[in-house]
């Protein structure tokens, strides 16, 4: 089994799906000749030609809207937003259109699109190349939001997203692209959307998180294991709609829950996770539900001092776990 980086896994999933099904095509800014600003689509233009790896005008709303139109008549578009921050001009197409097409037509039409976008910070991207935007969409029935944490999941979840009959937002942490490597089988596996995954079994305390923070939480857990603190880690993988059962099970297992997101704290995906726990397994808890998140400021600043202040790190997670464990 090959060891691939996160972005190589993304690339492989697209390549395999395009080989499998000629209805699958990619569109976005600089995805063609340049192969994407992060090189996720490198080589695909050469392999599949310019119509299947289409460089679009600089218009996110059109990228989403054109993808929606093509999907309605049977194509399987994968739209790339260059940075998650730049999905915002396309919100109306995504929320008013893609998410509501099946429902509003009473199941007559559907809209199988995937919108991929690199999110997250810690790469000196400043305010507009560092944001987590999932919460903005995580109140939109009709959408699914997938955020993988490692190369294996990335490949399997992206394939599942491309084959899904409904619109999927697929966010990839840009710091994970080259940082995180892992074994990725070359066979055609898919990982079901909507299912969270236990990334580490433990009995003292539960961490629920997603994306790059899973990687950080695993690092923190390894260190804490040396001190006899046994951490259970649940990777949400799909942040909307949430996997309630898995959340309830993970929270109940240890009775102490730390929720971690790189997003701003108030109104994040973790608010819903906390609400689920408080609704379904409140009496299993031995401590208040703790959230570790970005501060409630607009976005991550550029200067390294302030960027570090904002970012989640293994150290911050470790500190929070120690505090909660001591409760």
């Amino acid at each position, binding site marked *: 089994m090959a060891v691939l980086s996160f972005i190589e896994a993304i690339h492989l999933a697209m390549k395999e799906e395009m080989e499998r099904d000629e209805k699958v095509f990619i569109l976005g800014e600089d995805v063609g000749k340049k192969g994407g600003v992060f090189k996720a689509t490198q080589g695909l233009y050469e392999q599949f030609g310019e119509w299947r790896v289409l460089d679009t005008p600089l218009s996110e709303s059109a990228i989403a809207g*054109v993808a929606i139109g093509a999907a309605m*008549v049977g194509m399987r578009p994968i739209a790339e937003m260059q940075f998650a921050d730049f999905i915002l001009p396309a919100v*109306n*197409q995504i929320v008013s259109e893609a998410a509501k097409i099946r429902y*509003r037509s*009473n199941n007559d039409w*559907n809209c199988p699109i995937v919108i991929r976008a690199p999110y997250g910070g810690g790469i000196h991207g400043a305010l507009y190349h560092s944001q987590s935007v999932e919460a903005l969409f995580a109140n939109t029935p009709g959408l699914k939001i997938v955020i993988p944490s490692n190369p294996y999941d990335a490949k399997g979840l992206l394939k599942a997203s491309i084959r899904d009959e409904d619109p999927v937002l697929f966010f990839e942490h840009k710091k994970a692209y080259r940082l995180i490597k892992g074994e990725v089988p070359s066979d055609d596996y898919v990982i079901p959307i909507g299912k969270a995954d236990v990334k580490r079994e433990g009995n003292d305390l539960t961490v629920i998180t997603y994306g790059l923070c899973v990687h950080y939480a695993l690092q923190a857990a390894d260190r804490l294991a040396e001190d006899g603190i046994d951490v259970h880690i649940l990777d949400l993988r799909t942040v909307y709609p949430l996997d309630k059962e898995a959340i309830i099970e993970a929270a109940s297992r240890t009775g102490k829950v730390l929720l971690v997101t790189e997003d701003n704290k108030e109104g994040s995906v973790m608010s819903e996770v906390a609400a689920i726990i408080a609704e379904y397994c409140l009496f299993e808890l031995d401590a208040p539900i703790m959230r570790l998140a970005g501060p409630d400021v607009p976005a991550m600043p550029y200067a390294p001092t302030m960027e570090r202040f904002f970012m989640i790190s293994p150290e911050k997670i470790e500190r929070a776990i120690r505090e909660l464990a001591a409760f």
Partner: protein
Amino acid sequence: MTNLHHVELGLTDQDVLKMYETMLLARRLDERMWLLNRAGKIPFVISCQGHEAAQVGAAFALDPGRDYIAPYYRDMGVVLHFGMTPRELMLSAFAKAEDPNSGGRQMPGHFGYKKKRILTGSSPVATQVPHAVGVALAGKMQNKDYVSFVTLGEGSTNQGDFHEGANFAGVHKLPVIIMVENNQYAISVPVDKQLGGRVADRALGYGMHGVSVDGKNPLAVYQVMKEAVERARRGEGPSLIEAVTYRLTSHSSDDDDKYRSLEEIAKEKANDPLLLFEKYLMDANVATKEYLEEMNDKIMEIVDDATDYAEKAPYAPPEHALKFVYWEGDE
């Protein structure tokens, strides 16, 4: 009317009678909906009155068995030509379960019917423009020879989505036809407070063919549409058609229409496209007054039948609100 003659456009007497019939059917259905609204039987109407010539003239140049349409809320004339039935339209007006557009989930005017190649539409204006472009892109990628037709109001051409969609079509020379039904108002705002320039002039900036046409004359609209369809099928790219007309009713059943003078409306009613076309048909000896009256009587029966049918049809049960958020398996 100009001095266009249908035979010169390659249309038979039967064709123009069919055009007129569809226009009249749209008008009568629309009028009935207003009555039903005023009687408290349906909550909302948004009207095609004044737009029928543009709609039917344009639709006639398309092939309902092949082309896709992304109509906007006034396009009753377009969807009738594409095969939506009066009963289906009335089911939608009454929000009944059997409505093929949305099963009673959407307001009337929010068309959609996969079998008939009518894309599903929403309320936020102009979002359908990129969709139609996407349909055209899919056609081009798969070497299909269909045309994608999309309409919107002139006020709605000020949305970013109009611009982004039109430019995308222009860059890739896609077989899309955008028809703007310029009825002089966007609710209360007159066109000179909506657009800095003229609608048709926007085509240039997208590298597409642009033309302004008398939207009260179905033959004039048919003519420019036919040329646009031919260009599209030949791979010569998109067109922007501005069909100039006037809205004969208030914006919708919720609008008091106080922002326009009664004189202005009265003057425009004298140029009602239906009256003009009726006169054309008689002048051209295609039909007599009696023939058209008979046609009207038959249409009224159809409208009555559709109303009765829809009024008696059941609503979807409450819990149906939970269905079809996501795929629930193949039927």
